[in-house]
């Protein structure tokens, strides 16, 4: 027998929720990504500092649920120190996996964090291209 849905958040999620890493906005950001959650109406903002294609600093803010806070915190941890190309590959699933899973209903929140990161990178790229 299988099929037992995950009940509640994992310890890792709760740790990131209670002690979120990299909260806030980086000063003088090189890229900012903001996304709204089409599912439940939350907001997520990720700002990055980039040096030589490497994300040297990253911070987030979110108007969202426990999962939104935890996934954003995890995304910033995963992205920090990575090259932009590497960071761009961080997927929703990666975030969820790193947190030891999310309840099915909350998977969409991990989209939010990853999407905001990707948008921040896009924003940086746009600026540097045009700049």
């Amino acid at each position, binding site marked *: 027998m299988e099929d037992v849905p995950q009940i509640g958040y994992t310890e890792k999620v709760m740790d990131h929720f*209670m002690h979120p890493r990299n*909260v806030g906005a980086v000063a003088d950001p090189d890229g900012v990504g*903001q996304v709204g959650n089409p599912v*439940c*109406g939350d907001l997520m903002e990720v700002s990055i500092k980039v040096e030589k294609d490497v994300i040297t600093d990253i911070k987030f803010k*979110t*108007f*969202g649920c*426990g999962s939104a806070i935890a996934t954003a915190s995890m995304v910033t941890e995963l992205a920090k120190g990575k090259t932009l190309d590497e960071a761009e590959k961080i997927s929703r699933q990666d975030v969820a996996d790193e947190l030891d899973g999310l309840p099915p209903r909350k998977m969409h929140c991990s989209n939010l964090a990853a999407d905001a990161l990707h948008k921040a990178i896009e924003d940086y790229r746009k600026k540097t291209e045009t700049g």
Partner: protein
Amino acid sequence: MKQIYLDHASASPVDPRVVAFAVPFLSEDYGNPSTLYVKGLDARRALESARGKVASLINAESPATIIFTGSATESNNLAIRGTALRNRQAGQKVVSSVIEHISVLNPMKELQKSGYHYETVPVDASGIVDLETLADRVTKETVVTSINYANDEIGTIEPIREISEIVHERGQYLHVNATAAAGKISIDVQKDGVDLLTLSSNDLAGPRGAAALYIRRGVKVQTILPGGGQENGIRSGTENLFAIAGMGEAAVIAGEEMAAERERLQQIASLYRQEILTIPDSYLTGHPTERLPGHLSFRFSRIEGESILLNLDTAYNIQVATGSACSSRTLEPSHVLLAIGLKHEEAHGSMIMTLGRSTLGEDIPYVVDAVKKTVDRLREITAM
């Protein structure tokens, strides 16, 4: 860490006096009330005694007007679908307010699917049903109009007597979902002019597994659970005497202690309200005065309710509820909060505290401090 449970509307601990009363029905007085030996007759007496106790709590004209069901959801379904279907020749229209519990709204939608005409009535910013629109919507074809006695999410108490007059002048039967109100404020089905009324055991601090539907004498209701014909043919299934006897006892205790408890909870609630509303950008939702005694509902701008709930639980062992989209099964904000005019992002910051018998005034400072710190912390993170 001491637990401070402030979510009685979701689930109430069963009063230990009720447990003591009901537990013998499990392994000793377990007779089936339909059997004819003494053990069965004793069970039937216990069943009828519970019926009388529940009838008394709402001043029903007779114990025979009380039908026991398994849950408030079932009572609501029975009241709405059972009455509409039984009286379909009298009209095929049904009406409810927009802030009804989902166990009222969904049976209404079921009827709609099967061809009934279903209309809803808005509420004002405090959650009071718009009586003019009600008067417009209820017509003589309206078999059932369903309005909650008080709302479980915002605590607002409806003007049931006025509503009853409007409904009876124009339409047919008034069903009142009193799940959130029963045992907390005094209900008199006769004076209130109610035809059908739902109340549940657990909201009286009785065990789950029992609820009641008051059916005024003369109102015809069709069963929605056909079978052995128990409960006068209206609700089949061997009676859950443990839960029913417990509900009866819970009704007695609620009746006896209501006045004092109401006073006590009102005091605690008013202190909470005063303190919590000192938080910047915090608001009470629901009616400022016409509200259930132990009911508090707030919203805080720029933060989200599930986070509030989790933070209070994890850091302070305090349990509250929220109407935020993120915490709901459907990821939609509470339909009640939207109905009183909140924007989606305003509803997001909802926090609901429902007090109960175990709630102590001495915990107020601790809880208020916890709420303040929680709001502060989340506002530091917020993207709004």
